[in-house]
């Protein structure tokens, strides 16, 4: 028994000693990095600033630490810049070999290195990295895959890359939904037509379709209005997103379909309320009688109908006046409040 206790105490002592050694090593490492950063940072900042101001001197970095600090400063500046200076800085990062290093880093064994490399390439967004980024869409890590997909979407490229980006969005939506939303947004900005397979594909997860639908609406991509109209007949969540999108686009050809959805009492309230709001955004005067009839409906629908009528000019105002004078207390109060200047 005593021997067992002694062994346990020895083991514990060794563990504590190892733990302390690890903590000390980490602290030394952090202090060293901090010291090196303080030493090299001012020079790196000045070098990059003067280079961007047009001085002929190109910033240089000798050792590994100095290079790392120069890259950190360059990436920081890249985030705050746009226009020709941003392009110049991205070119400089390329010329100093950082892009090539990051491309090689995408094939590293360590996941942290691959993530860091993907983040560097995302910041630089260099077209020269397209091949390496496309290859990394098959990475085992969803963060690396989505970071590379987003960069590829921003840079643009071949149809094959677009198909692979969409495949990543479908695959990773549940693991990293925020990152996939960024991928879909980037795709919508750089290649709006590429959203079509996500909006219309019934085999895609509903979460990624919802994002694509929202992006199409917020970016007012009228080329997708027909697909969004078709989505109004689908499950309520998809239909609600599509209705909002059509409202943001202001698609007058969707008025009938939106009125069908708004008036269908078999559909969920959020989908109907979204259709009502869209009718108001579009300025659909023919919807006034329907909206007026909804002033006696459930509260969310009634509130949406009041807001929509406010946006429909004289016919909407007349309907609100009539509701204000009615004997339905809730509708009357809401309409009165809406009519107040």
């Amino acid at each position, binding site marked *: 028994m005593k021997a067992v206790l002694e062994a346990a105490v020895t083991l514990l002592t060794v563990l504590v000693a190892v733990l302390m050694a690890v903590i000390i090593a980490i602290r030394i490492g952090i202090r060293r990095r901090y010291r090196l950063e303080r030493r090299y*940072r*001012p020079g790196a*900042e*000045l070098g*990059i*600033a*003067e280079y*961007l*101001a*047009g*001085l002929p001197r190109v910033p240089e970095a000798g050792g590994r630490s100095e290079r790392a600090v120069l890259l950190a*400063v360059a990436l*920081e*500046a890249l*985030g*705050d*810049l*746009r*226009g*020709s*200076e*941003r392009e110049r800085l991205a070119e400089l990062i390329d010329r100093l070999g950082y892009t090539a290093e990051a491309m090689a880093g995408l094939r590293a064994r360590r996941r942290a290195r691959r993530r860091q490399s993907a983040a560097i390439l995302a910041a630089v967004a260099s077209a020269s990295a397209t091949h390496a980024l496309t290859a990394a869409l098959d990475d085992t890590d969803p963060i690396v895959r989505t970071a590379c997909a987003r960069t590829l979407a921003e840079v643009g490229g071949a149809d094959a890359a677009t198909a692979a980006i969409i495949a990543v969005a479908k695959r990773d939506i549940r693991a990293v939904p925020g990152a996939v939303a960024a991928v879909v947004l980037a795709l919508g900005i750089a290649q709006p037509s590429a959203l079509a397979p996500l909006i219309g594909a019934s085999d895609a997860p509903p979460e990624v379709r919802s994002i694509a639908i929202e992006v199409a609406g917020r970016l007012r991509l009228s080329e997708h209005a027909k697909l969004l109209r078709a989505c109004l007949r689908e499950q309520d969540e998809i239909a609600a997103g599509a209705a909002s999108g059509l409202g943001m686009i202001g698609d007058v050809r969707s008025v009938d379909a939106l009125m069908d959805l708004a008036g269908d009492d078999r559909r969920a309230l959020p989908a109907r309320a979204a259709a009502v709001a869209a009718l108001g955004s579009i300025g659909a005067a023919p919807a006034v009688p329907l909206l007026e009839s909804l002033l006696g409906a459930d509260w969310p629908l009634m509130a949406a109908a009041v807001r929509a009528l406010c946006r429909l000019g004289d016919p909407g105002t007349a309907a609100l006046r009539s509701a204000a004078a009615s004997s339905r207390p809730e509708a009357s109060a809401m309409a009165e409040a809406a009519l107040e200047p």
Partner: protein
Amino acid sequence: MKILIAEDSPTVRRVVAARLAADGYAVIEAADGEEALALAQSEQPDLLILDKVMPKLDGFEVVRALREDPRTRAMPIVMLTDRTGEDDVLGGLQLGVEEYMPKPFSPHELSARVRRALGRVSP
């Protein structure tokens, strides 16, 4: 002409300073709101480039203090900030900021806006 740059990111500060120095301006730098206010009052620069979010004293507080001081009331101010919401822009313009420049920004464009703001006060 002398320009004061108040910006807590040293990288952005140096980029802007180098651009304006290349344009021929004398540049002084402040890393926080308090330093910006003190330098604006003591150095009397011809123009102030000011970040909205800064340590010690917010950019809008700096503008308010400068507008209350007769020595700095007319000093043109260019806000350079990533706060670009309607409230922020309107708040800045109501306080008397000449230009509101959102980040990410183009130093060339900033330089043009600085020229324009200086031209308004000394044509």
